[in-house]
């Protein structure tokens, strides 16, 4: 019943996604506690972006609502949850700005205040009332306080399912009243076989690389595929292949391409891939864990750089710089090409052995 995937190109909306992979354990924790009659009234589902938090939340919501549907027709519950038209389900998410048509940056108190009136009315189908808060970390201060009041004194027959990219990003006072379901990254083989199923055009090697760079998050992997992230990633690796030596001409050419013609998406994608690659590199250096040896081009590069035994600081500083520049590029409209060149410059470092006399 994978309507979502056959219908649209990108990942399906979580509320309409009937496929969930890799989170049976979390789902069973919920179902078990329900089965035992000890269902917590508030749940916090945590994990990185694209891993399936909201998909799990809506799936659990459907289980609750199906149980008490008088018609007992799970298909009908599925359709109505997907359409946002189930009278006993309230979804709180970042509101869409009516002018721009895009989602606003935060969950505002105006929309959060609608949760209480929903819970002040009886359930329509004589069963559970379910509130899904998608992106609990996006609630602004007042919105979070409004939700805190509800979580503190929840009405009967109510389950609140929150998703959040990190458990520490929600108010501790809310967190402490929630049962936490931490979703784990999918393991690489599960991911790559799943990817091959949904993107038959990928070859297994690419699927494996995607599994690695998407940090075990299927949503992230699909996004990388659709935004041609894989190509950028491969280009990045070949550009870095001789680090700490960098081919100046190639670097300029790459920076030109990424920063201009194909628009913002490629540029943002590159910075993201670059930062996540640095994180993996730093992890290897910090833990001295070389277990990834030789599986891929990236492993070869990472192991070689790690073996140089340079200070961790340098890479950490570079990572910080990359993250900072990413944010500043958007807010201050920095020159994208210069941002890239400045990062590449740092990548070479102050190595006296630097083989390239023509520094940027």
């Amino acid at each position: 019943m994978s309507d979502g995937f056959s219908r649209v190109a990108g990942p399906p909306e979580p509320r309409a996604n009937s496929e969930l992979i890799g989170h049976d354990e979390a789902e069973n924790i919920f179902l078990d506690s329900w089965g035992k009659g000890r269902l917590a009234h508030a749940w916090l589902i945590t994990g990185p972006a694209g891993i399936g938090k909201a998909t799990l939340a809506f799936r659990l919501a459907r289980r609750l609502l199906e149980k008490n549907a008088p018609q007992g027709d799970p298909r009908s519950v599925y359709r109505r949850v997907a359409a946002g038209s189930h009278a006993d389900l309230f979804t709180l998410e970042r509101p869409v700005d009516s002018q721009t048509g895009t989602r606003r940056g935060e969950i505002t108190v105006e929309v959060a205040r609608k949760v209480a009136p929903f819970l002040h009315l009886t359930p329509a189908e004589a069963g559970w009332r379910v509130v899904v808060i998608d992106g609990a970390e996006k609630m602004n201060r007042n919105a979070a306080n409004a939700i805190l009041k509800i979580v503190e004194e929840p009405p009967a027959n109510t389950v609140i399912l929150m998703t959040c990219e990190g458990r520490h990003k929600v108010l501790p006072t809310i967190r402490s009243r929630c049962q936490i379901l931490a979703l784990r990254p999918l393991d690489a083989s599960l991911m790559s076989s799943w990817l091959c199923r949904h993107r038959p055009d990928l070859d297994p090697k690419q699927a494996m690389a995607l599994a690695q760079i998407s940090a075990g998050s299927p949503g992230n992997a699909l996004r990388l595929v659709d935004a041609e992230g894989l190509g950028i990633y491969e280009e990045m690796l070949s550009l870095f292949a001789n680090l700490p030596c960098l081919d100046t001409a190639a670097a300029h050419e790459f920076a030109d391409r990424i920063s201009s013609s194909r628009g913002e998406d490629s540029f943002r994608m590159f910075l993201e891939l670059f930062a996540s690659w640095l994180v993996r590199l730093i992890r290897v250096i910090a833990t001295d864990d070389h277990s990834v040896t030789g599986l891929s081009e990236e492993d070869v590069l990472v192991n070689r750089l790690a073996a140089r035994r340079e200070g961790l600081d340098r890479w950490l500083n570079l990572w910080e710089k990359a993250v900072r520049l990413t944010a500043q590029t958007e807010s201050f409209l920095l020159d994208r090409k210069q941002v890239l060149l400045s990062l590449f410059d740092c990548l070479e470092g102050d190595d006296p052995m630097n083989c390239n006399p023509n520094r940027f």
Partner: protein
Amino acid sequence: MKLTIEREVLLKSLAHVQSVVERRTTIPILSNVRLDASDGRLRLTATDMNLTVAESVCASVLQAGATTTPAHMLHEIVRKLPEGGEVAFEPTEQVDRIVLRCGDGIFSLSCLPVEDFPADFNAELAHRFTIPAADLRRLIDKTRFAISHEETRYYLNGIYLHPVIEPKPLLRSVATDGHRLAQVDVSLPNGADSIPGVIVHRKAVTEIRKLIDDFDGEIACSLSDTMARLCFDSVNVTTKLIDGKFPDYGRVIPAANDKIMEFDGHGFMNVVDRVSTLATDRTRSVKLSLAPGELEVSAISPESGSASEKLPVLYDSDAMQIGFNARYLLELAGQLDGERISLAMNDAASPSIMRDPDDNHALFVLMPMRV
């Protein structure tokens, strides 16, 4: 789905259901009205997920089927069609389009699948009874003004409807905003003696009240702890209820107010209205000074000056003074149908009771205002 229907029949029915539909909703399907055609009837359903209104009307159904289409737009179109016309709905090649024809006019409307439409609230509700439309109208009209607007006390945001068995069987509605309280009774319908007390929220009260205007017979009601349904012949209203406990209002109705004043309602309202013109702030406080046989209504404002007017009343207790919000006084007095009004007081700090001396089945409690 393929059918034809008289424009007037369709328009009236759309008018009934469309007002439930929220004008600004982010969920597309909730802007739509559901149309179900079968066995010579067209059924129209609209909902805001808390309240559903459905109506079934006669139509010539050529091909049974169902779809949903934007409610307000459909209503607007049908309203503008020429009177006496015949409206035809026809399917199109595209699943997400339906065509409406009337005379030479052709309208192609967008559709969403019925499976995405909110479920009918059609579960069986345990308690059933019928009530004359006039009785329900009375229960609503004389109490709805007192419904609280304060969301933190959500359990007061509706009318509390419940049976009273002693001293005699009655169906009672109560509403209060904490400053005043309205309590109105009608005789208890058969089968309503064991219904649960329910709090009907404001929007449901408003929609139900609109439907009573067009209706004169018996309304079939069914209730459970969580839902209420009212059937007006072909129109059905089903609503969620307020999930809360209405306060024990009996405790705030004074039983021993012995200072009783009786007066002509019309004259009293005129005087209060005139005098309170001077009280400029939004409380519009007026003072009632009572002496045997006479009432003086006065108001004072630091900015504007003062006003007072006397009127004859039946009153033979001790002289006293009591202050009220003029708006509340006028609203309460406006609920009374008879010519005479009685106001039973205790002192300037305790609740007073206003009622029609000839109607034992409606009373209004008002807390005084003090300066």
